[in-house]
């Protein structure tokens, strides 16, 4: 008597197997094509497929395949040189069907107007952002992320701006806007101002980071709420994830926003006509433009929808933090030279001594080994988890995603044991001042990296600077070693990530317990590696190949014998 002898069980198993082979949810491609064609658009489809580096536990997918459907509304009297995009990302966990309905209604309405000077592309993508990435790569004829996609049959000119729409239901109590994109890129502030203007005109309730706009800026409440919104934006921008389909458009210098309709427990509800009017107004205004949006800021942080902090105001803060590192490096340089000058004078006074003090030449050699080893650890941290996942699953009873994350953590922790191994590699002649040279090099390395990061993704640069600079400056082999070790571990990149997760959920008023936080941390690690392979997000390689080796150098300095 086996499993398959019982006909009932046999049927249940057959149904289960059938279910697993067929996708749980698929875009109704044929229906969409027919409907768009009946509205009067030029309709095209694009298929794409991709095998993820390891299965995505949160979205339960591994071999991803899908079809994007898009319709082009041609401008009646213009030359089809420019276009605007309205995109609705659909996926198994968020079908976004209300947004598709609104998209089709808007397409029908726009088709009846004669004042369009740019083509409008109505894009429905499958598999969320993977579909959007496939479409964008095919549209701009590049292949950045290794996606296999069929080439596009129809194009509409250079994309000037894009709006992504996500609706959960057909009534909406507020509209939330997301600006942070891939690798912390932001759209031009004018696009956000446009959205805010139409919110005010239409009397819609609009939120940023899920928080309402503070009304009272004179008392403490307004600025405090603004600070919370600003911290949330900093954390989101630092993570470097595309928080919506708009984040992928920004890489091609297409200004884009994601508008989410939230249905929560509020008294006043808006129907889709109000949302549609706001979108129509935004598209008409974008239609009026002759040039790309370039007059307003590209680098800013937002305490509220109607307020911003520009780069000229916030950059000095990061500059001062990095100045600390520079000054510390200068101090070490001067100490090294004084110490180097001392024995030289003594040698000269006593007699014709060696032209170079032996300490300096040994110093250089003793620097190369820690640098190479920590960089090798960083490389291992970057390459090994994904490469070695199959080996890990063979030997341990874990899934691939868990294997990747656990390998990451294991290599990270192994780095802590480094000083003991590097000291065995190097000769016992490591002089007392060798640590100063190493710390000098590490300080300059850290300063350069953080400066480069702060220029492109200010939030990430500032966050890392705020945590790593004090620990790096204070590290000293003499002194209370356990205290400094604890400080250094608490400000390491991984601990910073953990802390940021807790802070992020705290600010969103959904605080985490320790166990939940740890689970979220593991999930975030897996997502970070996946984002890097699927969208080209740079947080994982930056931390693994840049900041982790730098942090290891400081760890070496701390445990110098």
């Amino acid at each position, binding site marked *: 008597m086996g499993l398959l002898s019982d006909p009932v069980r046999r049927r249940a198993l057959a149904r289960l197997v059938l279910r697993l082979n067929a996708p749980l949810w698929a875009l109704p491609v044929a229906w969409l094509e027919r409907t768009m064609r009946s509205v009067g658009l030029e309709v095209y489809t694009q298929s794409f497929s991709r095998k993820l580096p390891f299965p995505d536990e949160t979205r339960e997918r591994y071999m991803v395949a899908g079809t994007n459907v898009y319709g082009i509304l041609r401008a009646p*009297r213009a030359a089809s040189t420019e276009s605007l995009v309205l995109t609705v990302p659909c996926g198994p966990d968020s079908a976004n069907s209300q947004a598709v309905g609104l998209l089709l209604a808007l397409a029908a309405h726009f088709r009846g107007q*004669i*004042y*369009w000077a740019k083509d409008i592309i109505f894009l429905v993508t499958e598999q969320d952002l993977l579909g959007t990435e496939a479409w964008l790569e095919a549209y701009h004829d590049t292949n950045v992320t290794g996606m296999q996609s069929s080439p596009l049959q129809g194009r509409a000119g250079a994309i000037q701006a894009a709006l992504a729409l996500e609706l959960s239901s057909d009534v909406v109590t507020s509209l939330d806007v997301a600006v942070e994109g891939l690798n912390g890129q932001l759209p031009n502030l004018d696009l956000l101002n446009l959205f805010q203007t139409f919110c005010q005109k239409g009397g819609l309730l609009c939120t940023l980071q899920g928080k309402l706009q503070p009304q009272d800026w004179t008392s403490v409440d307004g600025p405090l709420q603004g600070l919370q919104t600003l911290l949330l934006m900093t954390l989101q921008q630092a993570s470097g994830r595309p928080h919506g389909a708009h984040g992928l458009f920004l890489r091609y210098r297409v200004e884009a926003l994601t508008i989410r309709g939230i249905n929560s427990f509020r008294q006043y509800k808006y129907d889709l006509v109000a949302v549609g009017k706001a979108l129509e107004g935004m598209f008409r205004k974008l239609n009026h*433009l*002759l040039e790309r949006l370039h007059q307003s800021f590209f680098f800013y942080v937002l305490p509220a929808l109607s307020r911003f902090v520009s780069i000229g105001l916030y950059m000095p803060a990061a500059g001062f933090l990095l100045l600390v590192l520079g000054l510390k490096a200068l101090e070490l340089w001067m100490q090294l030279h004084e110490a180097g000058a001392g024995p030289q004078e003594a040698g000269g006074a006593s007699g014709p001594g060696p032209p170079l003090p032996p300490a300096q030449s040994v110093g250089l050699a003793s620097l190369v080994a820690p640098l190479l080893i920590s960089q090798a650890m960083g490389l291992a941290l970057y390459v090994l988890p994904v490469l070695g996942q199959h080996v890990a699953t063979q030997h341990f009873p874990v899934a691939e995603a868990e294997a990747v994350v656990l390998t990451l953590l294991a290599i990270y922790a192994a780095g802590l044991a480094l000083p003991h191994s590097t000291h065995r590699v190097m000769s016992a002649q490591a002089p007392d001042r060798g640590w100063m040279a190493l710390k000098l090099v590490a300080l300059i390395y850290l300063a350069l990296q953080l400066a480069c990061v702060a220029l492109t993704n200010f939030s990430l640069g500032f966050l890392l600077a705020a945590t790593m600079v004090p620990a790096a400056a204070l590290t000293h082999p003499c002194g209370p070693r356990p205290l400094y070790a604890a400080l250094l571990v608490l400000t390491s990149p991984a601990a910073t990530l953990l802390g940021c997760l807790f802070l992020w959920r705290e600010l969103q008023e959904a605080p985490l317990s320790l166990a939940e936080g740890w689970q979220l941390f593991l999930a975030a690690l897996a997502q970070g590696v996946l984002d890097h392979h699927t969208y080209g997000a740079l947080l994982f390689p930056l931390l693994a190949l840049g900041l982790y080796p730098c942090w290891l150098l400081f760890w070496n300095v701390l445990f110098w014998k």
Partner: protein
Amino acid sequence: MVASCFLRKCLTALAGLLLLSFGSLAASQIEDQTEQFFRSGHTNNWAVLVCTSRFWFNYRHVANTLSVYRSVKRLGIPDSHIVLMLADDMACNPRNPKPATVFSHKNMELNVYGDDVEVDYRSYEVTVENFLRVLTGRIPPSTPRSKRLLSDDRSNILIYMTGHGGNGFLKFQDSEEITNIELADAFEQMWQKRRYNELLFIIDTCQGASMYERFYSPNIMALASSQVGEDSLSHQPDPAIGVHLMDRYTFYVLEFLEEINPASQTNMNDLFQVCPKSLCVSTPGHRTDLFQRDPKNVLITDFFGSVRKVEITTETIRLQPDLGNMESRNQS
């Protein structure tokens, strides 16, 4: 007998005196009429109308210029004597929901584009260099006749400019500027080359009065829509077209000009009163110190129209050369 002879002589003398006085009265009337004929020293009219801004949301600047073009054409200046410079095409813009029209009012009563508009400098040809070349006449020999300002020393020229401006400058096409000093020097070049008899300069931009502060050539009268430090405001937005249709100052100037016909005797003082602060929000300004005639003697049609002076008379008139005027011209 002697008394009747004396009486007859007296009567003839009286009759002779009366005839002489009537004759002299008639002669002075003829002289007055001929004085009127040469009241203003110009024999032809030109207009240079410039709109300096592009982009669809600067629709109102093109509408401003076209309203003045329409008035000027209606009052008699032919297209061959108008240099019309429009930096962007609004009527045939793909964003225009009413193609081939440019409206001045949201009731869409008046299509200022019309059926027979002739644009001489269009789109990217409207640059500071081209504008100054038109004014001073330093034009390459291949330029067609319609793009030239072929004025002489008896031409009255109307120059109307609109766009975005600031304190001392006017922006051309979002990429370059003309300053008030350059403009004043260009007018001085025109004066020295005898390219105008009298010049009326009207400007409708923000801080427009700053543009005429530096003029130093004679026979120039200037009007501006706002003083230094003030913005010129637009009139009304139109929800169907989606933009503001006209600027306030030119809207009220157009309203004023619609009342003028080629025979009207309205003078410049009435033009100075157009658009008080209550309607315009900004304070229009004017400058007449360089102008030789009194503004109340200057007709609107002296600049905005091309009124051919025809006087029919059966008397013989002896014309005396105006030595005083000629000497002043030779000296300056």
